[in-house]
């Protein structure tokens, strides 16, 4: 009876909010949870559940998994639009269940915030958990990077029957393998993306998580990921079961890699640019295989999936394209900069910095970003900064050095003006916003250039 009531309340609130023309991402779930706190345990009973968590790459990974299930002809539900706290996840389960609380689909893909995972894992059951990576995120909300890691580890312990896919190159993520009872599948990249990739300026994990001695690296891929080894206690990277052996091509909107999935070697195309997305791809290959899909399906999914909302999302302006790449933390921002720098054509760059709760109220993290000389890049033709803290961004660019290139400022979060500028360009535009800035500007862009609203 309570299940029915909880679901009903959720549906009514959603209905009302939609009538009011508002996106409903948290409120309906909140009401449902008030009626039945453990509603998720009922709703996750008759469905195969895959949970995706970790600092970066959750949404893109969910897109790949979605494509995999679609390719395999399976039916599935997914919590969209970053509604990845317990409220959003609950609401998503309810909206995809019958009135009696039985899931209408075979699979449920759940994107779960690292810190919300603790509570979600108390109620939900899961078949597979994919952990993308652990980076230093918005510390004013979450505390230390080890705090995030512990949240994930404790949550996984609540789901002992789930197969857990761990990033073998992330010393933080892989460390939980020593403490969890679960069956573990590892994934990773066996070689640096570039010859002699250097040690990062700012590392989130320089010292051994177990004994605090400095790691030695045989190679670096990006940030603290790579071939780590602690010579003191012996904790080191293991050779992953799902691996990328070599990167054959890096294109703006795709990569070609040589894979080795459990001994089966072949060439695979990944339908998204950016070296960091190679990790998302190989992580999803592990997760999809753990879900029981065959390798043909996995490769097809990697080749065909489309980027997620705000993550390398493209809007076509006829003679040029507008790309939006969301950034949330130094690691992701640095990777985005190195990706854009690798683009061969001229471009306009727009950086947008907000400091609302979901962005991180402290904007100092932009000083930990490795801009890698992008502001002096030949192909960069125009540089704009915007957002609530546009001037902090402006100083950051100025102090990094722009070779005299003007830093143009779009004040007052005027996204109408931003869209005007972006669509009037004759070259490709890269907009790099933080979370709330993306959420506010995207509807403005979509309205002008076409595209879905985020709650659709």
């Amino acid at each position, binding site marked *: 009876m309570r299940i029915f009531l909880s679901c009903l309340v959720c549906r009514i609130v959603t209905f009302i909010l939609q009538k009011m023309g508002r996106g409903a991402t948290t409120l309906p779930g909140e009401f449902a949870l008030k009626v039945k706190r453990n509603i998720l345990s009922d709703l996750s009973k008759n469905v195969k559940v895959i949970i995706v968590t970790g600092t970066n790459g959750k949404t893109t990974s969910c897109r790949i998994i979605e494509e995999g299930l679609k390719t395999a002809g399976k039916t599935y539900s997914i919590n969209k639009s970053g509604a990845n706290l317990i409220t959003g996840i609950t609401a998503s389960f309810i909206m995809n269940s019958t009135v009696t609380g039985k899931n209408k689909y075979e699979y449920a893909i759940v994107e779960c915030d690292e810190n919300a995972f603790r509570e979600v894992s108390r109620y939900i059951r899961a078949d597979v958990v994919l952990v993308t990576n652990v980076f230093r995120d918005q510390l*004013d909300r979450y505390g230390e990077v080890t705090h995030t890691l512990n949240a994930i580890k404790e949550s996984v312990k609540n789901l002992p029957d789930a197969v857990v896919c761990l990033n073998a190159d992330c010393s933080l993520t892989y460390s939980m393998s020593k403490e969890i009872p679960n069956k573990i599948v590892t994934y990773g990249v066996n070689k640096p993306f570039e010859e002699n990739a250097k040690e990062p300026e700012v590392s989130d994990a320089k010292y051994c998580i177990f004994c605090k001695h400095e790691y030695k690296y045989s190679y670096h891929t990006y940030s603290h990921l790579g071939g780590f080894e602690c010579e003191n206690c012996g904790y080191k990277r293991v050779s992953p079961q799902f691996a990328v052996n070599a990167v054959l091509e890096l294109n703006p909107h795709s990569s070609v890699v040589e894979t080795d999935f459990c001994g089966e070697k072949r060439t695979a195309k990944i339908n998204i640019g950016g070296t960091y997305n190679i990790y998302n791809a190989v992580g999803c290959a592990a997760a999809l295989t753990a879900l029981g899909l065959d390798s043909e399906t996995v490769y097809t999914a990697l080749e065909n999936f489309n980027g997620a909302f705000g993550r390398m999302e493209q809007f076509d302006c006829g003679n040029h394209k507008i790309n939006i790449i969301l950034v949330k933390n130094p690691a992701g921002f640095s990777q985005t900069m190195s990706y854009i720098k690798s683009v061969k054509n001229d471009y306009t760059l727009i950086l947008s910095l907000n400091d609302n709760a979901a962005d991180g109220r402290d904007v100092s993290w932009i000083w930990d970003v490795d801009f890698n000389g992008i502001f002096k890049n030949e192909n960069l033709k125009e540089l704009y900064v915007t957002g609530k*803290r*546009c*001037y902090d961004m402006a*100083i950051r660019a*100025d*102090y990094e050095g722009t070779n005299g290139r003007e830093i143009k400022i779009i004040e007052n979060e005027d996204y109408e003006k931003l869209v005007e500028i972006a669509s009037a360009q004759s070259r490709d535009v890269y907009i790099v916003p933080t979370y709330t800035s993306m959420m506010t500007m995207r509807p403005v862009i979509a309205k002008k250039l076409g595209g879905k609203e985020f709650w659709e």
Partner: protein
Amino acid sequence: MIIRIAHLYPDMLNLYGDRGNIIALSHRLKARGIEIQTEKITMGKSFNSDDYDILFIGGGQDFEQDVLLDDLTKGKDAEIKKAVQSGSVILAICGGYQMLGKYYKTYDGKMLPYIGAIDFYTEGKEERMIGNYAYKTKEGIEIVGFENHSGRTYLGNGVEPLGKIISGFGNNGEDGTEGVRFKNTFGTYSHGPVLPKNPEFTDLLISKALENKYGKSDLAPLDNTLESKAKAQVMKLYIKK
């Protein structure tokens, strides 16, 4: 002219973009045609504070705290104390600032002995003090920054704070003080990082370092348009005067 900066524990005390302070110092020194040399003083590396004109210590995570305390007692503590007493320019942020005091007592009673270069101590409470804040130095420089600390710092008798709180918590949320100032040592809770948005403060540090080394400082004014606007943006959004 050349200014040499020692960056203490850049690989451990590197929270919240504090390295932006080094970038800001370099930027404003270079703009005046002054050469700059930055040395990273990492764990296990010994250093002589006489070799440097400015010492910078950032803030860090608790995870690495005990490794660091161990390393400090192997000689770095004496060098830092010497630098403080001799009037070298020191900028210490958050955890680095706390380290200059006598001790840190965690909220569950654990005592961490610090180097005691200046007479103050810090006690932890569970509730963190987080937010944009502003304070004013005795020269009248208004500094904006972002604080995020659970430690409450209490200055000893007669010890001068770096500034008076305009808005926010500061040292302890009680006495209206922020940071510490002793000779040319400046301790503050301010992330942000503090120097890029507060060029007057950056120039104060540079002037003191030049005076120490060359007996005089004659800083050419720079265009501070972006810096002033960034500061005004924070003031307008968050600082209640």
